[in-house]
């Protein structure tokens, strides 16, 4: 390695900035536009972790990531208002996921209400539009519905359980490039 290159590196990481520990940064640095490469780096890293996990743990990877997501969902939702009604809980969940995921309650045209009762189970269809998991999977050429999706599932289930105090289950109905349909089963 040449001395010139080392000097160049040192210069790149040196500034005259005075940094005091009591100064709290009030905005992100650098600007969000310049963070694009960082975002891609994070997506690549996540994809790599998930791919390796699948190789090592096989089908067990889904259970691991689901459990991790669920625990995280419980922990995050602990600080949110407790709601007994499903509508209110979904509203809280929407706030919780803001900026990362966006979803809407959906129903097929032959159903009259959003809360559907069929074959002895009560469920709600959720259509996830914006989803960082989908972005990551597509960035890395990975299939949808695998362990990374299970993390989000666990997260949603954990948060719903924490907010409503009821047991819940989420099922994948369909995954697509622009939106995914999920079924939230309430127990």
């Amino acid at each position: 390695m040449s001395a010139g290159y080392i000097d160049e590196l040192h210069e790149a990481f040196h500034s005259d900035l005075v940094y005091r520990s009591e100064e709290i940064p009030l905005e992100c640095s650098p600007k969000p536009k310049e963070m694009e490469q960082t975002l891609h780096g994070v997506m690549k890293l996540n994809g790599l972790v998930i791919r390796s996990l699948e190789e090592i743990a096989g089908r067990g990877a889904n259970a691991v990531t689901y459990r991790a997501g669920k625990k995280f969902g419980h922990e995050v939702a602990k600080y949110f208002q407790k709601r007994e009604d499903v509508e209110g809980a979904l509203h809280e969940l929407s706030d919780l996921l803001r900026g990362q995921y966006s979803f809407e309650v959906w129903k097929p045209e032959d159903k009259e209400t959003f809360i559907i009762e069929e074959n002895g189970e009560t469920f709600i269809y959720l259509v996830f539009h914006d989803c960082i998991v989908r972005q990551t999977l597509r960035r890395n050429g990975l299939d949808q519905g695998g362990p990374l999706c299970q993390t989000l599932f666990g997260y949603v289930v954990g948060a719903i359980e924490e907010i409503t105090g009821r047991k819940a289950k989420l099922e994948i109905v369909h995954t697509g490039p622009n939106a995914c349909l999920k079924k939230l089963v309430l127990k």
Partner: protein
Amino acid sequence: MEIHVDKDACVGCGLCVKDCPMHVYELQDNVSVAVRPNNCMGCLSCHEICPAQALEHRGIYAARRHYIDINVCEMLRKVV
């Protein structure tokens, strides 16, 4: 939601019929027809699977796309 199928382009393969979980499409006279457009939730799997690119959705919410590689885009802009 409005779904338009280009009848001249559609090859009648039926992939959209098989793939759609909400049974939005049906094959009629070897051409795909959107018979239940209100059942469409906008996943756009049909767009991805259609070999003839014969489909068009109107009034759809396009999800954010963060996965497009900026470096690849820059290279493509130079070429195209």
